[in-house]
């Protein structure tokens, strides 16, 4: 199998370059991450992140043949050769396929990704009805792999100001939570021309999400809440 992989070591290279690899491997049921691990046995300087290797941790997000995805759940048989692998676009490269996610997590933190409830904690738990709980389906599953946010042109232009699809999906996850008491402040935080309204419904986020979530729909629901509050 043929691979073309983005290589950059800022300590040794003056500029990034693409390196060709040839691997003696039958695609079979193997995932792209399996191939990358074998490539690293050939060339131990190849840098990439991985952890759970089953699509839960979100560490091995990368740009695979031009499309963001998780290497560990991308079957090799689904990819056209040479398989071109680049780091996630729009974030600074630390080395090879490893990017600096600081900006991504800064935006995530900015939406207060935790429940705000000022009532005294109850004896057991803060209960929700099954219907209220169902509102969180399609929101809580986000693994913060950054595939969506780094596929979003609005984030490429304004990574410091636009929250990005992942952060906005999480923002709605807490707006939709009946146990949260911070709705007004959360909406205030996003009612800005940059933080939410840079979204122009390009929908790259929906296209690439490895968990098949729909940030665009969540963003639409935040807009609905804002309109309801205003009129």
């Amino acid at each position, binding site marked *: 199998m043929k691979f073309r992989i983005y290589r950059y070591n800022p300590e040794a290279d003056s500029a990034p370059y693409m390196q060709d690899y040839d691997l003696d491997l039958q695609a079979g049921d193997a995932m792209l991450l399996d191939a990358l691990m074998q490539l690293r046995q050939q060339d131990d300087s190849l840098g990439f992140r991985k952890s759970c290797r089953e699509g839960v941790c979100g560490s091995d997000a990368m740009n695979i043949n031009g499309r963001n995805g998780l290497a560990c759940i991308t079957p090799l048989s689904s990819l056209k050769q040479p398989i071109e692998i680049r780091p996630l676009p729009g974030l600074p490269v630390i080395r090879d396929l490893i990017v600096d996610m600081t900006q991504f997590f800064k935006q995530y933190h900015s939406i207060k990704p935790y429940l705000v409830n000022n009532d005294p904690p109850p004896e057991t738990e803060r209960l929700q009805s099954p219907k209220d709980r169902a509102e969180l389906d399609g929101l809580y599953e986000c693994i913060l792999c950054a595939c969506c946010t780094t596929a979003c042109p609005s984030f490429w232009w304004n990574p410091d100001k636009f929250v990005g699809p992942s952060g906005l999906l999480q923002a709605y996850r807490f707006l939709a939570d009946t146990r949260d008491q911070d709705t007004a402040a959360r909406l205030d935080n996003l009612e*800005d021309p940059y933080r939410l309204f840079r979204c122009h419904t390009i929908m790259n986020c929906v296209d690439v999400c490895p968990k098949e979530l729909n940030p665009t729909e969540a963003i639409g629901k935040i807009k609905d809440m804002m309109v309801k509050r205003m009129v």
Partner: protein
Amino acid sequence: MVNRIVTGAHYGLRDWLVQRVTAGVMVLYVLGLAGWALWQPAFGYDIWTELFSGDLMRSFSLLFLLSLFYHAWIGVRDIVMDYVKLASIRLLIHVLVILALIMYVIWAVQILWGL
């Protein structure tokens, strides 16, 4: 001044909503005008001037143009916000665009009411 990233201008929702409403106004006007034009058996300068001689048509045309200008303002501002990073130059471009659009409004009134 410290170089912090400042956000929080509270007009995001208003402009987003205005952009949708003005788009609706433009669609209605264009469809109405197209429908009227198709319904005419003959089409000439006299029919055209007669249509625009009424104050109602002039008013709706002005409403259409105002919608177009406001819609264009939000669109152009969005592009400038994406591509012009220096706040002073961005402000200058914003001011120039606003002044140009105000001139267009005056011009549109002059044309429609034949001043």
